[in-house]
């Protein structure tokens, strides 16, 4: 017993190294500033503002957290940021107007939504070699590689579909119609079902990737807020997978959804136009990028309280956390 205990302590020290135990690094892309803001999760102070290409939106961290890939849409490329030096160290050819991307669990491939052109580009991450360009609907945005790395879900905003792409053959194997303007695809923690938010439709569709059927569709009702202002966008699941947070954009709230029953338990008031979100490594905090108030709200996951908001850049879009 004792030996196991000691080993665990050593492992823990080894993992954290010289860094403070819980300090993580937060990255926020600022669409209008052409920057990524880097914050310390403990102090919430801005560590650095990294200049990027034009119109940075979607971001993804490699599985080893060493690189942050940023879609810079107006420059038609990805900027690769070294998460230690906090510098753009190289760029990757992404195809035109990349908006959002995902990296497979092995960190080998990058799947990119080319919004203007209506296709998905697949890159070899290290070499930047284009492996495939896969036509989907109009204005692809949401991208999610399945946890088992067998397929990828892309959503197209104007076509209102979730496209299922086979990661071996790069073929579209199914097109599932959802409500109007789907923005984000996110897998449940166990990887069995995928959620797709529809901004104008005001709903979330839950799709079974095996049958390619919408197994559940739910909306939101907030007293005093008109239905047309309730626009689901970013989705994040808590570490235990039992609860989901859905950012509701123009409703200025984040919905807290019970995953087992698909019912909303409460709404958390945050800044204006909450867009994408991220969880802290220990799962205790939720970080929400508020597009119109140029800030980020920190929500305590246990108490469901918005604790504070801190300024970032202009038109914050995405947020990610590196442990």
């Amino acid at each position, binding site marked *: 017993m004792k030996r196991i205990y000691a080993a665990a302590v050593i492992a823990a020290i080894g993992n954290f190294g010289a860094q403070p135990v819980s300090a993580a690094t937060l990255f926020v892309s600022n669409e209008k500033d052409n920057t990524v803001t880097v914050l310390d999760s403990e102090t919430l102070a801005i560590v650095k503002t990294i200049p990027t290409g034009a119109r940075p939106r979607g971001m993804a961290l490699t599985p080893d957290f060493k690189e942050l890939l940023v879609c810079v849409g107006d420059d038609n490329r990805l900027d690769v940021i070294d998460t230690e030096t906090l510098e753009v160290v190289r760029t990757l050819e992404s195809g035109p*107007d990349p908006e959002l991307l995902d990296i497979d669990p092995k960190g080998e491939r990058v799947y990119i939504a080319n*919004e*203007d*052109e*209506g*296709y998905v580009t697949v890159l070899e991450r290290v070499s930047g070699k284009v*492996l*495939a*360009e*896969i*036509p*989907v*609907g*109009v*204005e692809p945005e949401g991208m999610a590689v399945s946890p088992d790395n067998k397929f990828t879900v892309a959503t*197209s*905003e*104007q*076509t*209102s*579909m979730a*496209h*299922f792409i086979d990661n071996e053959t*790069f*073929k*579209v*194997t*199914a*097109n*599932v*119609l*959802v409500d*109007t*303007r789907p923005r984000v695809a996110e897998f449940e923690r166990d990887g069995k079902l995928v959620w797709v938010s529809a901004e*104008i*439709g005001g709903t979330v569709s839950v799709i079974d990737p095996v*049958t*390619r*059927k*919408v197994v559940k569709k739910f909306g939101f009702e907030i007293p005093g807020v*008109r239905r*047309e*202002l309730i*626009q689901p966008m970013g989705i994040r699941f808590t570490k235990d997978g039992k609860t989901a947070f859905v950012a509701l954009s*123009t409703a200025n709230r984040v919905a807290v959804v019970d995953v087992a029953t698909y019912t909303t338990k409460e709404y958390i008031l945050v800044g204006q136009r909450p867009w994408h979100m991220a969880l802290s490594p220990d799962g205790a905090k939720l970080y929400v990028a508020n597009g119109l108030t140029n800030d980020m709200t920190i929500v305590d996951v246990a108490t469901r309280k918005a604790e504070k908001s801190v300024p970032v850049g202009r038109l914050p879009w995405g947020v990610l956390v590196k442990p």
Partner: protein
Amino acid sequence: MRERRLPISGAHAKLGSAAVFSLVLGWLVAAYPAAAIPEAPTHAPEGALVTKILYVGKRYPEPLPLSLLDKDLTDEGVQGARLAIKENNMTGRLIEQHFELTEVVADANEDVVTKARAELAKKQGLIIADLEPSDLLAMADLPEAKGAIIFNVRSSRDELRQQDCRQNVFHIIPNWAMRADALAQYLSWKRWRRWLVVYGTTPGDKDYLVAIRRSAQKYGAKIVDERSYEFDAGSRRTDSGHQQIQTQMPMLTQGAPDYDIIFASDVGEAFGDYLLFRTYEPRPVVGSQGLQAVAWHRTFEQYGGTQLQNRFEKQARRMMTERDYTSWLGVRVVGEAVTRTAINAPADIKRYILSKDFAVAGFKGIGLTFRTWDHQMRQPILLSGPRTLVSISPQEGFLHQTSLADTLGFDEPETKCRMQKQ
């Protein structure tokens, strides 16, 4: 004769064939070679549900824009319809649907209704009408158009939504009352409530004037004076023309009771742009020039609008105008309805687009729907200056029991539309 057709396949529409339409459209797919990215299919695949849309326009004599910055366009409207057809087909290729556009454009001296009638006789029932009011109504009243859906993408005339409304006409473009209300809400928020109204001589100028008076009453503004400007439109290309204008505009605007803004109604483009910086008192100009209430403008890129601006400019090699946008939106309404229902008979589309299930995304931040009482599309209105977007109405604080966008234009209680049932 200027009739153009896009490639049309021989396939006929399968009306109502796919009544059972599952949410999963799946496994339809597709051996696309990785290298070639087809922009949008131009021919219907075998067995596809083919939906035909007719674009009807006419080269009406129009004054040249006063500003040399604005080009004289010959393809306004139809470029938007063409773009939307491509977008419909990018979606359609995934679900065995195909969309085709037939373009009928009459010359200035041709009767556009006769030309349109020949197409209507061929069972064209989904029509984008880029027409002036008299032609629009004449076409809508043809026996061949009885079961059709006609999308008005050009005329803002209020009467078309009121006493001259038709059961087969849907209005994509905002009417004058919506535009004047959109500006009035903003002016009310700014507390610029004293208006000097200056109007021109064309029928459109008079129509907008009536709407401005209505909005002043609705939002509690005071029109301190109304003045008409009756000189003919100046040629935009005159040497040393500015001296004359520099003296005329102060004369037009002097001696009025105190006013906060000038509300210009110069739809005919005779003088409105000349008001800016030349008024007797230093006051902003709103209305048909200056701060304009429009459905689309190049200054607008919110709610994903960037993508539409980019796509359009890539195709047309020029900026997207309001008429390009309304034509685009008309074709997208059809695309949205057919994609969702897999049915393309006009009667079915009409029922669907008037139902609660329908909303189309038009880059305005909310789903766009039709008012059931007059078939006007309910929509936020952009308020744009010459160089930047200023605001979007409805403004915060103007309340409505069902839809905020119904604070703009003719709400149900004030409608004069009495539609005959089909």
